[in-house]
């Protein structure tokens, strides 16, 4: 079990939150996704998963969800 908080830009509203949550939840081993929306700035996306996810995996999931970009990851 591991939890990582990602800084993601490009999110502006609840729709974005839904899109990002949907795509990230679809990744293998992801059990929980919570988003703290900062409209127009860096939103904090916390992903809990069985195994650590690679930045590429997260990036491409964000790409899939829309025009969102992974800025930083903070594992804890």
């Amino acid at each position, binding site marked *: 079990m591991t939890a990582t908080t990602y800084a993601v830009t*490009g999110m*502006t*509203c609840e*729709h974005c939150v*839904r*899109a990002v949550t949907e795509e990230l939840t679809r990744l293998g081993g992801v059990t929980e996704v919570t988003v703290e929306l900062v*409209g127009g700035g860096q939103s904090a996306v916390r992903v809990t998963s069985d195994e650590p996810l690679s930045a590429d995996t997260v990036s491409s999931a964000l790409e*899939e969800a829309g*025009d*969102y970009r992974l800025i930083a990851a903070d594992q804890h």
Partner: protein
Amino acid sequence: MRQGNSLVSTVTGDQPSATDATRSVELTIGGMTCASCAARIEKKLNRLAGVTATVNFAMEKARVTVPAGVTPRDLVKVVEQAGYTAAVPATREPDPAAGLAAGPGEQAGEAASLWQRLLVSAVLTVPVLVLAFVPVLQFRGYQWLLLVLATPVWAWGAWPFHKAAWANARHGAATMDTLISVGTSAAYLWSVYALFFGSAGAPGARSGFALLARDATAHSTYLDVAAGVTVLVLAGRYLEARARRQSGAALAALLSMGARDVAVLRDGAEVRVPVGQLAVGDRFVVRPGEKIAADGVVEAGYSAVDASMLTGEPVPVEVTVGDPVTGATVNASGRLVVRATRVGSDTQLAQMARLVEDAQNGKAAAQRLADRVSGVFVPVVIGIAVVTLITWLLLGEPVVAAFTAAVAVLIIACPCALGLATPTALLVGTGRGAQLGILIKGPEVLESTRKIDTVVLDKTGTVTAGRMSLAAVVPAPGQDTGELLTLVGAVEDASEHPIGAAIAAGAVDRLGGGLPAVTGFVSHAGLGVSGAADGHAVAAGRQAWLEGEWAQQVPAVLAARALEAEAAGQTTVYAGWDGQVRGLLVVSDTVKPTSAEAIAELRRMRLRPVLLTGDNARAAAAVAGQVGIDEVIAGVLPAGKAEAIRQLQAAGRVVAMVGDGVNDAAALAQADLGLAMGTGTDIAIEASDLTLVRGDLRTVPEAVMLARRTLRTIEGNLFWAFAYNVAALPLAALGFLNPLISAAAMAFSSVFVVSNSLRLRTFRPRH
């Protein structure tokens, strides 16, 4: 296809240029709240094999190129899976400009559909309310009539809420729609249950004014709640839909500015063709009074070009062979032959259209306050209902009683005044604003006024009058000012040039009387004017012209004063007669008399004024000094204004922009709050959030104050809309809810919300 007279091309059904294998489909997209939604839909559509899609957020449209095997139905399905709605428009637009106008039309369609639902529901609901509240009228079996009347209201009238609630539920989200849908459904379904399986359906039953619901489990009906809430919320939604901004309008207004056709020179002869057929390198003729069809370079002729609609600058620019001209500007005086250098979507006008579109796309729609509150409220209420149910069961109460209490929680939780909270305040606020000359476009505007800390003001036409006027008269040593004004005024009065007109008007003003007649008036293009008045041969114009053509020397005092004036961005005209230069006239755009006061007021409201202009720094500083602004951004190109706003925003400021010109449109859309002068261009007005009808800068602080007051009223309304119902929640959970309490909560909160909104009518600006 007809790329035609438009800058934005609209793909229509069977365009000949597309191959047989692919075709283009246009979809109307609903439910997008921000530009990211558009990007998401785009991505989902593009994932279909062979499909290329672009989604425009502001226009709520998707343009999709599809291969043979894909049907529009497939596309609609993909969009719906992503959580939005899509439809193929029934009719294809005949031309691109009409396509742009379709956006607002659809929004009008939404209002019309809500109106229909509202009307039918209201007609059905009135007897429901009358029967439910006047026991004398309750004939035997009246409750079955209630059911007949309320069923269509709940099922059809409230359908938009049920649909939206369902769409939200699939994403695990809750909005105001969820609350309305859950509340009305709980009330309706419970009533149906009570009628068929409880005691409420017994022919002799009357509306339950019994105080305890717990002993006679299912004898009360809440059909009046289901119907009443639906009608009130529909009414609110209808008002909002009518007030909603029409996002496509700015683009449509901008595009309609361009010339429609153009006189192209083909083999020496003029041929009139639609502007879309103009190609780079074509030479075309522009007569006086005509719009220039495309960006180009003057090949022959001499004229003054009025670019005020693009730049806002009041002085026409004089052009001759080799000078660049911009499409959509007006040729004011002479015949020109222009070689096109940029056409169609490459022109400056088209680029401005794109800037406006980009700025509008990038703006996240503020979530409705009522939705934000509901997002928290709904899960809490459902939680309470569940806890109520479980608690009652654990206490060993009968299952029916437990359900009664739980459903009662859901029924009472839906505040019917919620639907009225925003629209009534908005209606009264915008009405009061209209009286004061402030037109507010929609509720989302109000959200943005609260955090504003900076007000960027365009210079020309906003802080200044945007018109030339006589600023100073400097007679040569020994010259009488009155005579100077009389003679120059008389000659310039015959001129049609705006500078001449300004001098003549200024002269009449200062002399307080008429001007002598002029004979032999001649306008020397680009140099000056001459004529005879009161027996003197008078010439007025440029220094070099007077010195050369008229052999008149300019006194050093005047030359020094002229340099000073020109450095401050003012225009100077020398005048002379009888072999001598007799004086200097300074013409400039003047600061509106109320501007300084308005800026002082903005400072009192702790808003930082910033002057933004395309003029040079000296000219900007001169105006800024006069009105008391110390932060100046000067020398900005028309396309750079939106960027300037973006930079301020990036520095953490929340920016309101006040402007009037086409060149301000993108900046107005980019700003957190855009305010357009009502005296300005249509495009600026369409791109803005607020319009100041009088063009008086003092309405800027008034508008911000009114918007903030309205927003506070909305917040107050939301609080009270919830408060009465929240107060009744414990009663419901304890099983004490009865129709009397729910009706009282409905009535009190509605009356309170409406009267609270009406208080906005007393809003008075401070000065």
